[in-house]
Structures are given as C-alpha cells and as structure tokens.
C-alpha cells in the first residue's frame, strides 16, 4: 500500500522494486541465498588465463605462468570476495598443475616447488579474498548506511506533508518495508482491542502470539522484540509510537534473516523511523488540540454573540413594556387619553415581539437539540394558507400574490414545522421590501419534490452575503429592520430536518428582488 504522502505509482509492486534498488539493495542481498555468478566468473577468469597460458606457452617464460594465475586469483578475490577467491585459487592450482606442471595432464604434484606454488596460491587467494571481502563489506555497510540515511530523510520529508494519523502510518509502513523488505503493520487501539490500522500486505492477519506481543507493547509502552526463529512466539517485533508518554499506536516489524551487523543496522534505522513517526503523531495531535481549542473558542464566541444579541433584543421590548406600564401606573391621571391608548398599544406590540423572539429561540434550540418531526400526510396548500394568515396579521398592509400550479398532491411531512418555515420566509420577504410592494408565492411539484418559492421586490441581497443569510444571528446591512437574526436559520434547520433544502437567488432583475426556494421531498425518507 502506498501512502498518499509519498509518491503514487500506478504499479505499487514495480515501484517497490525500484525503491528497494534505490535504497541500496541488490535483487538478492541475503547471505541465505548463495549466488553462483561470482564463482562462475572466478572460474572463467582462471580458464581464460589457462587458455592464454596454453596459447602463449611457446614464448612465455615458465616462471611467468604462476604469476598470471595469481592475477586471476587476485582479481576474483578482490571482485567477488573470500569464497570466490578461494574457489579461483583451487581451480587455478588444479588447472596450473594439470596443464603446466610435470607430469603434464595429471593432478600429481611433482616437486616441492609446485607444492610451494599451490600453498602460495591458496594463501594469496585467502588473504586477498579476506581483505577484499572486508573492504567490500565495509563499503557495502557504508553504502547501506547511506541508503538508510537517504531513506530516513525521504521518510522525514514524507512525514512533513502528513496532517493526519493514517498518512503517517502509511508512510511508516511503506518506508520500513523498503528497509526490511518484510511485512510491516501498524496497530491501533480501538474499543479496547488492538486492530489493524495500516498493513503491508494489506490483507495481513496477525496470529495470537503477535497480537499478545502487540498488546504488551501498547500497554507497557515498551518495545517487544520478535521471538527468535525456531521458538514459539511473535514473528514481529512490536514497538509503540509514544506521544506524551502514552502509546498511541504500535508498529509491528518483521526483520529479514541477515547477519548481525546488518540486522543491527536495520533495527536502528527502523527504530529511528518509529521515533520520527511518533514525533509526527505528536505534532499532529498538538495541531488537533489547537484546532479543537480554536473551534471551542469559536463556539464560545458564537454563544457570547448570541447572548449579547439576545440580551439586546429581549431588553428593548422589556424596556418598552416596563416603561409604558410604569408610566400608566404612575402618571395615569395626568396622561391624555391618546397617550394612554398608545402606551397600551406599545405594550401589546412589544409583548408580541417578545413572544416571537422567545418562540424563535425555542424553535432554534429544539432544532439544534434533535427535534423529532411529527410526520403525517399534509396538504401543502393548507399549510401555505395558514402561514399566509399569520403573515397577514404581522404585515397587515402587504399584498401576497399566490401562483399555485396544478392541484398539488399530499406531502409526507411535519405540518407545524412546514408552516413555521413558510411563515418565516413570508415574514422575511415582507420585512425586507417596500411596504407597498407585493410578495409572490409559488407552489410547484416536480416528480418527487415539492417546491415553494417566496419572492419579494426588495433591494436584494449582496452576493457576498448570500452564503451567510441562513447563519444564525446573521443580519443584513439594513439595521432598521428589527429581528432576531434567527428566522432564516430556522427555515434552514426545518428544511434539513424534513429532508429538503433551501436556497436563495438575488437579485432577480436590475431592480433587485430576492427569491427563496424551499424544496421538500413528497415522501420523507425519515418515515420509511
């Protein structure tokens, strides 16, 4: 599995092969699989020298021949290491003995000088092979270290782009697998049990021993090395990803069967990667905490704004009511009749306004706290009519023009909520348009949705405000219009609750105008 932090390749396996070569791994790098090529090449070297010796026997001095063979042995030992060198030495001696030492074409050794030559061949081959092998091992180790460092830096870069846990796990699994060439898994604690988060191969199943080792690593926050081959236990080593002294995940790693030096190197690199992944997790969790704190602050801010706005909206009617009533009580006899009537009217109006605010608030609160709609078959035209009756009470002088389409079929919905939503739309349309202009309402049915539109001839809503008109407490720039800033938020809340949607379109022409469209499904999904 390739993580999205890393490159993406169409063929993961092919990319993997390239990755491994880039990371300094020959196709077969384990000692467990002897490679025949170096031996064959060593033998070929020697054979070539033998052929050359035979061909040039006429002019080559006899003392030069062993030196030639020695060159072949040296070349083999330097190029391929200890054992190919020894093989070359043995083959060189045999060939030299067979072809050039009296008695010719036998393997018998004729003289002490020949025995010396053989010993010399073997000794030179062994010494050179050992030295060359050692030098090559060191060069290999240096290359591997460089490759590991390279991989580590690539891993670090990949982590830098991750801003969630899973990509970190994917990057870890991907890069550890490049180092080990074996299965890798990241386990997370879910509902008190360790479960697979990211694995390679993806369909990996852990046996019970591994799961137990994984749980130990998680619980104690300490690494659990793999059980040695041949013993019963976990094949994986499990290492916790510790953030703030708490294990937040566990990486399970299988190590390749290689010599101790390389095993040590691989283990160190893998542990470094796990430490880096832990640090990345810490960073992400910190960022999450900051984000959560920010959201909390935003919510607090919203609540504070809501309270502030409400306290203002509630205080004004209360101030009018208290002021009017106390004036009537205290100044009663000295007030002219019209003044008394007007104070009573003001009290009535403000009490109604207060009651509307409280209703709005309650509806908003109920919508926010999981209100269950009371679904039944409802005649949309009926509901529209009762909303209109209320709207005409609130805006007595307003003309409402209804353009209903053909007879509309029944809708499965909540009549009270629908009426509230429609009233809020009508009220809103009336509030934000000249009092002598008309509000147009249409009712149309499509295949499976019913659409109400409410259109006014107001100045329209600036396009940069349209996204916010359904936000609680949002009020347009026209501050002369009084309201709670909750009306359209309630419409959206109801539309969502009833499985429908609300949208706004403005301006309708060059004179302005705004159209709200409320769409509701005929058959409510929540009921079926």
């Amino acid at each position, binding site marked *: 599995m390739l993580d999205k932090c890393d490159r993406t390749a169409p063929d993961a396996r092919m990319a993997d092969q390239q990755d491994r070569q880039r990371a300094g791994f020959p196709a077969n790098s384990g000692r467990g699989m002897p490679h025949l090529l170096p031996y064959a090449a060593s033998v070929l070297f020697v054979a070539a020298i033998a052929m050359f010796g035979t061909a040039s026997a006429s002019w080559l001095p006899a003392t030069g021949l062993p030196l030639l063979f020695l060159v072949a042995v040296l070349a083999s030992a330097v190029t391929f290491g200890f054992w190919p060198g020894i093989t070359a030495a043995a083959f060189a001696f045999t060939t030299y003995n067979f072809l050039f030492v009296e008695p010719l074409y036998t393997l018998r050794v004729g003289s002490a000088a020949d025995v010396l030559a053989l010993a010399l061949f073997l000794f030179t081959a062994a010494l050179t092979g050992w030295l060359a092998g050692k030098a090559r091992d060191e060069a290999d180790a240096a290359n591997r270290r460089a490759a590991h460092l390279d991989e580590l830096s690539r891993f670090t870069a990949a982590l830098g782009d991750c801003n969630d846990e899973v990509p970190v796990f994917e990057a870890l699994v991907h890069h550890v697998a490049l180092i080990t060439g074996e299965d890798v898994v990241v386990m997370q604690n879910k509902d008190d049990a360790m479960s697979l988060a990211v694995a390679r191969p993806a369909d990996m199943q852990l046996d019970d021993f591994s799961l137990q080792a994984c749980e130990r690593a998680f619980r104690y926050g300490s690494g659990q090395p793999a059980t040695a081959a041949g013993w019963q236990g976990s094949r994986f080593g499990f290492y916790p990803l510790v953030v703030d002294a708490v294990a937040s995940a566990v990486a399970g790693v299988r190590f390749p069967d290689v010599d101790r030096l390389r095993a040590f190197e691989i283990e160190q690199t893998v542990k470094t990667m796990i430490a880096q992944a832990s640090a990345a997790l810490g960073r992400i969790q910190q960022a999450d905490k900051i984000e959560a704190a920010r959201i909390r602050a935003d919510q607090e801010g919203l609540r504070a704004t809501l309270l502030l706005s409400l306290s203002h909206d509630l205080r004004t009617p209360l*101030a*009018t009511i*208290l002021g009017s009533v*106390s*004036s009537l009580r*205290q100044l009663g006899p000295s007030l002219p009749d019209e003044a008394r009537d007007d*104070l009573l009217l*003001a009290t009535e109006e403000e009490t109604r306004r207060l009651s509307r605010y409280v209703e709005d608030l309650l509806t908003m609160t109920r919508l926010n706290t999981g209100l269950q709609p009371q679904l039944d078959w409802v005649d949309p035209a009926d509901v529209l009519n009762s909303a209109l009756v209320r709207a005409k009470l609130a805006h007595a002088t307003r003309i409402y023009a209804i353009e209903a389409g053909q007879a509309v079929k029944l809708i499965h919905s909540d009549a009270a909520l629908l009426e509230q939503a429609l009233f809020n739309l009508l009220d809103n349309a009336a509030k934000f348009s000249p009092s002598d202009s008309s509000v147009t309402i249409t009712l149309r049915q499509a295949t499976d949705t019913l659409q109400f539109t409410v259109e006014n001839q107001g100045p329209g809503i600036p396009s940069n405000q349209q996204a916010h008109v359904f936000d609680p407490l949002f009020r347009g720039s026209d501050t002369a219009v009084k309201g709670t800033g909750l009306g359209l938020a309630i419409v959206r809340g109801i539309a969502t609750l009833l499985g429908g949607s609300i949208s706004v379109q403005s301006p309708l022409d060059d004179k302005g105008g705004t159209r709200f469209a409320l769409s509701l499904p005929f058959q409510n999904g929540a009921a079926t």
Partner: protein
Amino acid sequence: MTNLPLVLIVDDEPQIQRFLRHSLGASGYDLETASGAAEALRLFASRRPDIIVLDLGLPDMDGKAVIGQIRQTSQVPIIVLSARDAEAEKIAALDLGANDYVVKPFAIGELLARIRACLRAVPSGQEIAATLRIGAIMIDPARHLVTKADEALRLTPKEFDLLLLMAQHPGRVLTHRHILEKVWGPAHREDVAYLRVFIGQLRQKIEDVPSEPKLILTEPGIGYRVAV
C-alpha cells in the same frame, strides 16, 4: 416657547422614544428625540437642552464619544441608559462626564427621579455655605458640624469631607474614582478598599441600622449614591 425644561432623548429604538414622549410630556418636560449620535449632536447645538438622556448603544457612533464631544463645550446634565451587566461601560461613561445612569429596563419613576436629581443639582459657590440635609442628618459646612436628630456626631475631617461631598449631590451616583479624587486627592484615585472602610465608618455613625444603609446607598461596582 415654553418654560418647561427641555429633555433630549437619544435612543435608536422608536418604541423607547414613543413611551418616553408620553410619560415625560405628562410629567412637565419638553421633549426632543434623536435616533443617532449625529442627530443628537446637531439637536444639542441647536436646541440647547436642559438635560440629555443618552442610550450608549447607538447605530452610528459610540454613545461615550457623544458624551466626550458634549463635555468639551457644556456641563449639561447627561443621564446614560445602559444594560445592567455593562459596569465597565457605565464607569467609563461616568468618568467621561455623564452625571448618572439608569439601567434598562427601567420603571418611569426611576428615570424621572434621576432627571429631577440632575436638574436640581446646581454647582455654585453660594449653596455650599447653606445647611445640607440627608434624611435626619444635618450638615453645616461652615461650622464643620453634623447633627443627627439634633445630636452632634463626631466625625473625623475625612469622614466629614466624604459626607459633605455625598450630600452635595443628592440622588446622584458618584463613582469610586470621583469620590477618592475629591476627598483624598488624585494620588488615591484607585484606593477603592480605602473608600469602603471610610463609608463603613460613616454608616456606623449616621445610619440607624448600619448593616442596612438607607442614606448612603451602594451602587455595586460603580460607586455610591445618597438617597433622596
């Protein structure tokens, strides 16, 4: 042209203007109303009201800025309308030169009492010489004498200064800072705890039941007010 005191009401809520128009009219005041700061300043300049009732939450300008502008040229009494929870705002308004405040919502009697108190207080040299009275307490500034029901009270000089200051502004709120500055000097402007101690001592001497003061009332977080 009438001789009625002119009250300028500055509030952006038409409903508030509406009931104030009726009740102030019936209480013997002439009335002018403004819905915003600009209009208020214009009316202040053209009509020269005797008192201004100012809501701090105006749409076009902060009410406190209006106080600042008026105070540059005039000492006309200003009563601020404010929310109960806005202590800092009230103090700021009073520090800027507002004479008193009324918390919204209010009963009309409360506002009328404040308006009367502000219109009554006339700062002049002559009145200080006269005898002042708070309830049963008589204060004779010239003789440094305080009596309660004709019985002389023994006050320290600071207690006397404090009582005299309060008595000179009956019915009006005096902020902690204002009292501290007048009695103890500008260096002690922030020593509110100090003031509390002196008010406590003063109440022990002048109040009938010191734990339930009736003469010097506490305005929590703001200051003190002498009852009328």
